[in-house]
């Protein structure tokens, strides 16, 4: 059975057994957990690049790289 069918079944089950109000509370907790995971991931991701760049800087001991890093970062963002 495909996911859409399962969702359909779940939604029907939900409307029979769980009130909308309680379901909303449940989903809000779920959103909280998801956002928590997202921000942990984000912190790790930023940290990963910072460490990497500090490492590069130490290897080359070339301070002028600081001129370039933000340019590369924003170029990757765009």
């Amino acid at each position: 059975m495909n996911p859409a069918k399962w969702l359909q079944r779940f939604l029907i089950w939900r409307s029979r057994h769980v009130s909308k109000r309680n379901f909303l509370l449940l989903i809000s907790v779920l959103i909280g957990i998801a956002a928590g995971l997202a921000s942990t991931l984000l912190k790790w991701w930023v940290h990963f690049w910072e460490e990497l760049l500090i490492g590069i800087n130490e290897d080359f001991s070339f301070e002028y790289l600081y001129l370039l890093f933000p340019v590369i970062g924003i170029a990757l963002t765009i």
Partner: protein
Amino acid sequence: MNHGHLGKGISSIMHAISHKSSILPRDMTYSHLVTSGLTVGFGGSVGLESPIVVTGSAIGSNLGMLFRFNYRERTLLIGCGVAAAISSLFNAPIAGFVFTLEILLLELAVSSFIPVLLASVAGAITTRALSGTEIIFTAEMTDSFEVAQLYLFMLLGAFTGIVSLVFIRISNRSRKIFANMKTTWHPFIAGSLMLGILIFLFPALYGEGFTTIRALLSGNADFIVEQSFFSKWVDGNALLIPYILLLVVLKIVAANLTQGAGGNGGMFAPSLFVGATAGYFFAQVLQFTGLSGDLHMATFTLVAMAGVLCGANHAPLTGVFFIAEITSGYELMIPLVIVSTLSYITVKYFEPHPMPVRQLMEKGLFAGYDSDTRVIQKLDVRKLIESEIRTIAPEISLGELVEVVANSSRNLFPVVDQSGVFQGIITLDDIRTLMFKPERYNDTFAIQLMHAPPTVLQIQDGMDTAMKKFDETGAWNLPVLDGQQYVGIISKSRIFGMYRQLLASDTNRLDM
């Protein structure tokens, strides 16, 4: 990677709530994480709070869609996502909740607080479970608030207000400058190169800048100077004070350069940095000039952070709770409230609208603070037009007109010529006396009976213009034209009906 909806941050969420039925694109749940990590990780001088808030709200909106929640519930779930995002990023559940109210301007009924609080707490618990209880800024609180220092904090409030105002003004100016550049390459090259030079000269501007704030809080200001290009000259003498002031201004510039160049990040963390440096500067000046005795630098640094956070973001409570929570220092409550309030009042006097709201206003997309303005904005002139009303040719006689009147339930008849050009209107009152004189039926014509309406609406008029015209004339019905061409009639009663309907769906009241 971010196809078009980049760098708008919080204003894009506000826009989605007011104009896009609280639906956020699915790729928003991860795209801002990836790109903002690159911007900040490589030293972009902005904060992570705006991307994480966008991510959280996209998670809320998309889960809401998946489980078939309606517009009101989806909006509430966006609020949950925003609160949880801030709460988990800074380990500050109350600040997350207040952020949703103050910065997203979400009108929540007391009954809808519970899901938002739940999400906020769940977010904080998740980060704690994964990365431990980490306090972002620690400061040793030696003294609690003394009444004798009240005037100092009042001065600091006004000072942080002015700093916030400078922050806002520079940001508005910079947004305009970057928006006027023609290609996407110009802002990128100009912005990122200038940013690179600034960071090279002043490494304290690298990334979010929390290391600098920590150094200031632990009384280790020399650390900031040490790494700098100018360390030879500034080292440990009176030049430190102007150097710190320079950092205040340059951080604002660097944050705006990062955003203008196309980097992804928010103004929340920069305002913390600006606040910390401004507070440190303020206390140093007082001490250096001998205007006050020995001051506790960390207290002034922290309190000023709240001051600028409040001022620059128009969010008095968020600043207070944010600083209290991230330092777990509730002893500071009274000075925090004093400084935040004064800063907020100062900014509000000169700059009535918060930055995200202003961004929307510049594009004509702001939906208003109160339900009334918001609902009126949502009404669409085109959808309210009644085009099925019987029109009358100018040359028909009174006899034919009476026939039309007899077969119609309306008392208003627009007169339109063959080419569709609007001529005037005839109301039942205009013909009431003549209707009962059959002898006039053949020698009186519509063109003699019609009169000009009090005013006309143009089809491209916004709802606010339409409402103004109705208010000015006191009319119940007004014709709508497209240039000279007749389109239809809009009636007040129809607007009223639609207004009621939308108002009912606008308030975020859930019966909990």
